[in-house]
């Protein structure tokens, strides 16, 4: 596999940074949409290297973080059933529901399995015909096609003991929600490169026009991100607001038409609730009528979910870019990756977890009161 080392070259990074420093004449705030980009920025310390006025606002693009609490609680309920094998991507297991997480369901005897590909869940269904196998289908346009493929294949092969618990979300409506929020500080977007790999770039010119905001399709390696920032800074300084593709080695204008056809066949666009943010119109998918029998919500008819969200957690403001993780009172004290109050502290793509893992040294000490310091000492 190539294109990892090459896109982490310090000398090339230096050149991009020099260009950004030369170009930026005033403060600008831009949002990287995807949690993978947030993780990469914080892990490599890229934000420490930018001019003081260039602020990166961490966007809502961590699929684990924005999966609504009600859906997590449904997952916990379904996974607890003795006839169910519940399959999930790994980082969903520690996300807190109202009163527990999937790890606890597993330790209490639930059959919860981590899979690397949703098709593995389908294989588990074939191998266990006496069990109901449920896959937790979460994520953006990136994970939606392979998840769609599972129900498509289940129907084609007549695998009736498989179902999908769907909580898929779409990026463009989220960008729109951020731009129309009462408080919006975002002046440019680094769009999520891999989302565009599937969807292409066709959804964005309209947004750049309507909200007069530059959107730069950006990748995930350090040089990719710096190039995205560089192009955004150039647009902002020149007063342009265009769609640019800084990840052309992976993203084509059309995206992946086969994957998009799969999405159109399997899913219907619906309103979706985002954890910490709320309802965003037309921002998600559910299984279409044709595949309704593979919908785990339909099959298990989970009702009576009574959700309890932490009253302390301010992940909603973090997800909207209104608050930096370390500015939250609970950060690093009541809320740590080991004892997370909100999903942004769980996934390594979550902004709070990324700050906690990599940034505690630079967290301003005045953010903590002496009493909190004591409670944080292990």
């Amino acid at each position, binding site marked *: *596999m190539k294109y*990892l*080392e090459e896109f*982490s070259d*310090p000398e090339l*990074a230096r050149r991009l940074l020099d260009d950004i420093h030369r170009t930026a004449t005033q403060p600008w705030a831009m949002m990287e949409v995807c949690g*993978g980009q947030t993780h990469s920025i*914080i*892990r*490599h*310390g*890229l934000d*420490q*290297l930018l001019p003081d006025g260039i602020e990166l606002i961490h966007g809502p693009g961590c*699929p*684990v973080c924005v999966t609504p609490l009600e859906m997590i609680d449904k997952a916990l309920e379904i996974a607890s059933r003795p006839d169910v094998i519940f399959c999930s*991507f*790994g*980082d*969903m*297991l*520690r996300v807190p529901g109202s009163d*527990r997480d999937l*790890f*606890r369901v*597993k*330790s*209490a005897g639930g059959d919860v399995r*981590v899979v*690397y590909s949703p098709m593995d869940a389908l294989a588990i269904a074939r191998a266990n015909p006496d069990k109901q196998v449920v896959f937790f289908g*979460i*994520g*953006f346009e*990136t*994970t939606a096609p392979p998840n769609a493929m599972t129900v498509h294949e289940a129907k084609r092969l007549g695998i009736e003991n498989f179902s999908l618990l769907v909580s898929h979300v779409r990026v463009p409506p989220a960008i729109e929600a951020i731009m129309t929020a009462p408080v919006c500080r975002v002046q440019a977007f680094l769009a999520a490169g*891999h989302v565009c790999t599937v969807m292409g770039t066709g959804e964005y010119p309209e947004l750049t026009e309507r909200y007069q905001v530059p959107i730069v399709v950006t990748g995930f390696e*350090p040089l990719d991100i710096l190039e995205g920032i560089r192009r955004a800074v150039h647009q902002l300084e020149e007063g342009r607001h265009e769609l640019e593709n800084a990840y052309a080695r992976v993203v084509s204008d059309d995206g992946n038409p086969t994957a998009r056809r799969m999405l159109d066949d399997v899913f219907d666009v619906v309103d979706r609730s985002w954890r910490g943010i709320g309802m965003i119109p037309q921002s998600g998918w559910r299984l279409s009528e044709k595949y309704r029998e593979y919908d785990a919500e339909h099959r298990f008819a989970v009702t009576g979910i009574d959700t309890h969200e932490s009253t302390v957690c301010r992940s909603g403001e973090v997800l909207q870019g209104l608050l930096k993780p370390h500015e939250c009172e609970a950060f690093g004290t009541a809320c*740590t*990756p*080991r*004892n997370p109050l909100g999903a942004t502290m769980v*996934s*390594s*793509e979550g902004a709070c977890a990324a700050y*906690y*893992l*990599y*940034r*505690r*040294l*630079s967290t301003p000490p005045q953010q903590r009161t002496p009493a909190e310091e004591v*409670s944080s000492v*292990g």
Partner: protein
Amino acid sequence: MVESGQASPPQLLPTPTVPAPDFEGWTCPLPLRDSPQIVMGHGGGGAMTAELIEHLFLPALANERPDRLGDSAVLDLGGARIAFSTDSFVVRPLFFPGGSIGDLAVNGTVNDLAMSGAQPAYLSAGFILEEGTDVAVVAAVADRVGAAAREAGVEVVTGDTKVVDAGHGDGVYVNTAGIGLVPAGVHIGPHRAEVGDAVIVSGDIGVHGVAIMSVREGLEFGTEIRSDCAPLAGLVAAMLAVTPDLHALRDPTRGGLGTALNEIASASGVGVELDEGRIPVPEMVRNACSLLGLDPLYVANEGKLVAFVPPDQAEAVLAAMREHPYGADAAVIGTCVPEHPGMVVARTGFGATRVVDVPIGEQLPRIC
């Protein structure tokens, strides 16, 4: 287990009294505090494992030895200094590219002894077999135990066999314990790292963990990745021949290099500053970790060590390591600093810094 001063009548089958754990007494923010069950993360070698040991096992065992958290204990017995260690092995699959549960069982304990500077001498081996397991499989495991012991220069001198019901084990579990002699003048311990010490790793990291994952999950990375499973006592002896004053040694198994460094930083009260670009990570490991959303710093090794060496000895120790087949790719990856005591901080390739933390439980593959 006597509850009061009065003698209780003898019983054929004494009923064990299991006191309810007092979670209020736990001083750390305990994960899953309100669900007192063991989860997989307790075995991950990270913070959850450490808490279980610190708050549950150590108080129960009431042991105040300063080296109680080392890879092995060093005991004075009749004038000799004996290192003593034990380890259990529950790996799946039993055989994997580059090794087997038998190799791990020998090398794991041999390496724990070697991290005290001991020359390993004798091992015990306990086999817990699951009903229904093919005898040929057990024979193959035993064969590997014997072969690995011969390579490591130790003798397996005592053992035990138990069989559990089908479904109550994973084919074969192996426990080994071992003893070895610590040479005079050698006092290696996780609490002995000092400001100025060079941090040396003996070679490529993350190889064993990725090898296991690739067979367990059926992941393919183009070329076969073979476990680095190896006995390290010879390498340690070569290092001790340069100077008996090695400060700390650790074989970064579960939890990986990142966890091992944190343990030593925390036990010694020094800061560790890493130069990320110098940490030897093979391209295959980097790619596999990148695909799975894992950090090579937390992936298991079975044939590597990390050493904290006084600065004036670092160059000579490094040279001696590179002469040895199991240390050919050794590299200085950082130093001990007075800043941020107990914490490990990496300088990234771009000149920024990040904290290298202890993982909580097991690393979880990221979604995308």
